[in-house]
């Protein structure tokens, strides 16, 4: 799955969980510049992403991510394995 396709899958997950129908997710999006992306929403996002891509993030894997772009890279790596 290429980065654009992963991004396209993430878009509705973020819109739904954060309840922001007009949200435009970009590789630069992160918890500080997206409204409502708090720690509780984060737990929901992780569940939805793991189920959607059939992956499981390892402990600490998400901690170092700076933005959605890096998350896309990580998802790409994990789905290719």
């Amino acid at each position, binding site marked *: 799955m290429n980065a654009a396709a992963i991004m396209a899958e993430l878009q509705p*997950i973020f819109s*739904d*969980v954060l*309840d922001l129908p007009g949200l435009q997710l970009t590789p630069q999006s992160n918890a500080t510049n997206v409204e409502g992306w708090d*720690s*509780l929403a984060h*737990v*929901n996002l992780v*569940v*939805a992403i793991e*189920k*959607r891509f059939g992956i*499981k*993030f*390892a*402990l600490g894997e998400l901690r170092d991510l700076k933005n959605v772009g890096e998350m896309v890279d990580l998802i790409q790596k994990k789905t290719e394995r």
Partner: protein
Amino acid sequence: MKIQNLPVEHLLQKRKALRRELLENAHSPIKIAVLGGVTTHEVVDLLELLLLADGFLPAFYQSDYNRYYEEAVLEPEQLRAFQPDIVYVHTHWKNLHHLPPVDATEGEFQERTSDELERYQTIWNSIQEFAGCQIIRNNFENPPVRILGSQDSVSHGGTTRFIHELNREFARAARGSRSLLVHDLNALAAAMGHAQWFDWGRWYSYKMLTTPEANLAIAKSLAAMIGAIFGKTKKCLILDLDNTLWGGVIGEDGVNGIEIGKETAVAEAYTAFQEYCLALRRRGVLLAVCSKNDPDAAKSGFSHPASILALEDFAAFKANWESKDRNIREIAEELNLGLDSFVFVDDNPAERAIVSAQLPEVTVPDVGSEVALYPAILEAGHFFEVVSLSKEDLQRTESYAANATRSTLKAKFASYDEYLDSLRMTADISPFQPIYLERITQLINKSNQFNLTTLRYTFTEIERIASDPNYTTCTARLSDVFGDNGLISVVIGHREGADLHIDLWLMSCRVLKRDVELAMLDYLVECAGNDRIERIVGYFSRTAKNAMVEDHYGKLGFTLQHRADDGSSSFWTLPVAGYLQRNKHILIESRAEVVK
């Protein structure tokens, strides 16, 4: 909207949109405080959706992470201010404080068990003291780590044994207290399996010990328990016949051709399902048949020597060629139950689809066509959850069956008065008695149709009202030629000056049109006279289910004082002076002294 079958990731992703949609049809406010030893938000989010789907309008209070003890015992101000209807203490195995070391002696083990228990008793007592509400608390799941292997459940140093002892003590505490309910977390964890239950990544990351699937299982089980507290449990299981209660088609194969008994694997599975249905019936769940069949052929199936169920086990029996939704409507009328009281089981997906579409209130689990799985599927739905089992529950099925005979009898009399006399009814009408408080609370929280105000009360509130001198309370027990109907009607009134305000008046639909309400009014007027009351004030508030009592006070001779423009509520008055006794058909047998 039905959300029962949606997967957890869908519920969590679409939560906010689902919540908005469900809010439109939710109407019963309920306040739930959740005191967690783990992060509780996901369980609460899921529980909120499930309760909304059941018509509740829940408000939640959540303790800070792992502050369940502090907020219950040391700093209860916030919790007290929230005024919860229910406090749910959500702790897991991980929250245990006094686990024994592996080298513990028997004495140390016992000491640690009682220390742990005491800690929880302190929590319950404190909540009781300042909130006086229903407490639901988890027991503990078996530990995922058994350092001593199988000996862990045997040894003084075993965590598993410690948890077993504690769970037994929790159960004992719950048996001894009406306000404490144990939520069987251990059974949920066992049903799911520890590999699917625990999530260590989430524990270390967010202090959430369980998987999303486990949290959904917890939320479903809690929602069922809360529904049961407020009387929303299903009351009747409607069953198809061919390939549901036996293998084969009775109309074609005949009674000797159907599969039931112990002779084949298939027959054994049907026998097991019949046994499961019979077990439900014995604990008070009504059974009914709805089958596309020739009626005589349908009935002949139960004459099979291996049949577990007998015709008398069914409170209603519809075998004909009409559509099933129509038959289910008729069953609902016959049994005097709302459509939302029914669970429908049929192996035929087309029948399930029709009933589900035509009668959205009826619960239609997706049982598939493998009868061996039916008991497990029904169990997983938590449809018939109970919070306490009274003697009345266990007798209820007989009472409904006797009702059918009464209806037959009714047809033969010249007048309704004559019929009522033939029933040779006797009633005991008394103020609330301690032994009936449990049954009274249960009736209050599950009666929907003959219920003037549909106010719900907890056991603790009823206990208080029973001993409050400013209240006038009464209950009626009714017996007739067919047997004892048990305690079937409840009135709560409070006195203010020369007025007696009737806050609550309800009656079980088993005894409609028997003049019990007249006998109760006679009693209320008598009490009013003793208390120098001049006027009785009655109230009606409309719900989706109580249209039958809209004119209750009018029929009793009260004068309408005010009715809301939309008819949603009204109040009525009756002067005590000049009242003439109304009841003519019920012998008032013994009456406990009218207590002030």
